[in-house]
């Protein structure tokens, strides 16, 4: 269980990205985080694996205080939390295999990994992960030779190498075509349902939220303005989150308002 309590983040330039946000996520949930660009979604996700240090508040993961962890403890926590990114964040000049294996670094021997050595077991695991996301034949291709959707699948495979219990997805489909968006989210859904991995995913499209999420939270200007199941996200509530001028848009491109 993930418990976020009174989380506040103020950046050095004075921007208040998160204001006193509290919520909990039960194990096995698929939680969608919605909100405008700049509403604090990315900051929230990055606070959970401490890529960003929160200013105030606590985050508990299975009753361990993430916000207090340092050094090896922090790395062990991170190891258990997978993350995928909007821009995929692959090393473009390295091969797919190297990128996937780099997800295992939290487990790998510190010295051998610096020399580029991974155990045969890890390599096996990497091939299995690639097989799982449907691109087993791309293992020795350079990452920049792949299409966007394929790159994001490499991103998922990399996160899978961590054997995560929690998966953070920061707008994983925002850089992809609508058709590819579904295929990527289906993989996340699969992980959520088959492996029981808890997923926190920031999303833009309401129909995707309705289709995949089990619960939704909405952020506006850093404040939690909505919490509930997708069905509760009516057009009125939607406008509370996105503002009066917002219109619900679906991945299909139709106007849902």
């Amino acid at each position: 269980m993930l418990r976020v309590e009174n989380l506040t983040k103020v950046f050095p330039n004075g921007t208040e990205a998160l204001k006193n946000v509290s919520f909990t996520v039960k194990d096995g949930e698929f939680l969608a985080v919605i909100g405008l660009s700049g509403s604090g979604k990315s900051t929230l996700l990055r606070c959970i694996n401490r890529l960003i240090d929160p200013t105030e508040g606590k985050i508990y993961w299975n009753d361990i205080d993430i916000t207090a962890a340092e050094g090896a403890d922090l790395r062990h926590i991170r190891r258990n939390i997978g993350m995928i990114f909007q821009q995929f964040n692959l090393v473009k000049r390295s091969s797919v295999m190297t990128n996937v294996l780099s997800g295992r670094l939290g487990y790998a021997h510190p010295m051998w990994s610096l020399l580029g050595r991974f155990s045969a077991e890890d390599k096996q695991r990497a091939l299995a992960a690639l097989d799982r996301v449907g691109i087993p034949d791309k293992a020795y291709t350079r990452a920049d030779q792949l299409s966007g959707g394929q790159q994001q699948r490499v991103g998922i495979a990399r996160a899978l190498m961590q054997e995560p219990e929690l998966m953070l997805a920061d707008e994983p489909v925002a850089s992809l075509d609508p058709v590819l968006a579904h295929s990527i989210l289906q993989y996340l859904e699969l992980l959520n349902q088959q492996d029981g991995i808890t997923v926190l995913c920031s999303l833009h499209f309401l129909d995707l939220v309705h289709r995949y999420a089990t619960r939704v939270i909405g952020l506006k200007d850093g404040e939690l303005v909505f919490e509930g199941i997708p069905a509760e996200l009516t057009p009125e509530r939607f406008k509370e989150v996105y503002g009066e001028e917002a219109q619900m848009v679906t991945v299909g491109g139709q106007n849902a308002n």
Partner: protein
Amino acid sequence: MLEPNETPNSPDTRAFLAAIISLIIPGGGQFWLGNRRRGLTLFSLLIVLALLVGWNGSAVLAVPVIVLWLWNVWDAFQLGRGRSERYIVPFLLGAIIIYGVAYSVTEVNPRRLVTGWPAMQPYVRALFQPELFEYPTEDTVGTTPILIPCIDPLPAPSRLGSTDPILTTVEPCAAVGDTITIVGSGYEPNFEGEVFWTNPIGDVQRVIEDGRQATFSADADGNFTLDIKVPQAVPLSQLPAAGETQTHIIRAEQRVPYGSPEPTQTLRLVMEKIGETIALAFLATVLGAIFALPLSFLAARNLMSGNRVTRAVYTVVRGALNLIRSIETLIWAIVFAVWVGLGPFGGMLALMFHTIAALGKLYSEAIEGIDPGPIEAIKASGARWPQIVRYAVMPQILPTFTSYTLYRWDINVRMSTVIGLVSDAGLGFLVIQWIRLNEFRAMATAILAIIVVIMTLDYASSWLRKRIIEGVPQRKEQSTLRKVVVRGGIIFAFVVAFIWSWNIAEIDMTELVKGAPDGLALVQSFAIPDVIDFPTEQLSVTATLPVPCDSAESPSPSLSGPRVVLEPACGEPGEKLVITGYELPPDTTVSVRWVLYDDAFLRVKSNCCDTDADGNLRLETFIHPLLEVNPEEGVSNPGKVAIVWEEVTGGPQVSETVQRVLQLALVTLLMALLATTIGTAIAVPLSFLAARNIMGDTRIGLIAYNVLRTSFNIFRAIEPMILVLICAAWVGAGPFAGMLALALNNIPNLGKLFSEAIEEIDNGPVEAVTSTGATKLQALLFAIVPQIVPQFMAYILYQWDINIRMSTVIGFVGGGGIGQQFRLWVGLNQYAAAGTAIWAIVIMVWSMDYISAKARERLV
């Protein structure tokens, strides 16, 4: 002053007033009329141009300044009437003045291109006759004695002649100037030989007949007969006494080639130095990269923007890198030659030093350009810091780093071919040494070697760079054995090359340590330039010293004021003497001198002496013999002892060094300007002839294209530093030679870049214009020129940046400008003055970089 808006005057009156103001203060009228920018521009333009002409002192160039002044009045008048003149006139006048001054201060003299040609010919001719191979020779040497002069009775010669081959003289003896006949047999048949004369002391000289060396030609049986004239072979002091004679030896020798050709001594030396050149460049690049790597992380803004301390480190490291980089490698070579002595080690250090700065900057820019995403992703997976560097940072920067390093290696090879011009390292040293010895063919061999080395490495490194940037296509996972063998081979080759280079470079760390006090003192005096000095006056006190005592009256010593007292007041040469100075300036270095009867002087003691805190000085010595009064030899004035010192007579002033440096910096700048302009002017038309798409597939077109492109590639490989050596022989050392060398180097450089730019133009507009029925020239003007102008401008600016840097060092080998003065000052150990020159160079390079960066921004 009147406000134009408040005046009820008609426009004509306003115009008139504006004109009058502009007549008094250039640009003033325009300013008053509200066009402030125009006014200020005109004002500063005129002031700068007037100062330039005033400095140059040319009366002819004052004319355009006056015209510009008048134009400024006219412009104010027109502006007052509501019209605006175009800037074309001041632009043209400004250009005339700047180029006029440039022409004058760089001492351009086209006539010397013609008159100097004969001096240049041996260089050019030699370039087509390098010393590459020769047959080994076997010498057939015959000798015979002859007695000079004839005496009666004639003794037997003190030495015997040779027996195989046999050489004899018809006359057993002769006098200087006589013609004698020598007869030889047993020589190589049908082959020529030369005749030498050895005097009794053993000095050898050539036997000259009709101004040329006497040669003989053996007939089919190996015999010959030759008449020669007896030379004056003995110095006058060694001539035999009357009635005596001396044995001289005549030698007739053939050098008969045999076997197969072998490399000449020259070629062998050149090959050795090729190795040294490459080794120095290799070592400097590797070591430079190793040092640059950690520095580059400190100089990367994105890594160092964390807090105030890291930002300060960033600023300091970046600043230092920029400073070192803007000083040319050749200047560093001179500095390190002082530090560790002449030789490969100093050359390598200079190359390495500049490499660290250049690579440090390029590397840090590469680091600044990396994508932060992968770092975030790998951090999120729980990786440690070194793992993040290994998996997220290194893969992103390694290819770029490798490519930059190779690029630098390219530059270093070029530099190490010329570093020998100032230090004993690499091929450049051979070139300058052989030029000094007038061994043109040997020099040509070295120059050709430079061209070959540079061209080969150019091709090799551009091939490698391309391969690295594009990446090696990765197929299946390669077999481990193959990978190990390939990697092992590369590492082994690298280690071997490194050790080999290390040995060649004569690395001697003790030199670095031993020279450190000198080096640091040098750096210190460089760092503190001669910016101000004080006007001084030379003051002295003297006392007469009669030698011997009765030769003159001893002076009665004065009792107050600055004075010198001698004890004893007179004496004999070699007697002990105590010189005491009183009431001199305290703690001052003074010079104590013997003043001879003719007012010439000698120092009593070198590196002498400092007065104490009370201004007193005591020196014990012995009376110098030259002070002796000797009427028989015309010496009647008694000598004197003088104490001389310099006293500051005024307040601080801008030092003469600064004035000299400023002048030379201006000369250097104008040299670069003129060279860039001339280079461009010639390169532009040539580049069209060297562009494949312009010349088409006609036969003449292909020939022109191939000939021009090939010559561009060859001449590009000749560094300006080498060209200037030849140009100095052609037109005489000085700024003209330097300018000429730069221009000659720019033509092929720009020609190649320009023609490649022309080849890359979009053919669409050309087709469109041609389809309207336009001629080829019209198509050129309307479809091609607009496309290439920005590209050309960018290349010209690039060349201009390089020229600025080159022009600062071209004076080292006869190219004039600030480099010449710098080297002179270093040679005279005037390091503070040399430091001033370096600061001027840094400021010049930085400000010109800034200007061209601004110009580039406007271009894009």
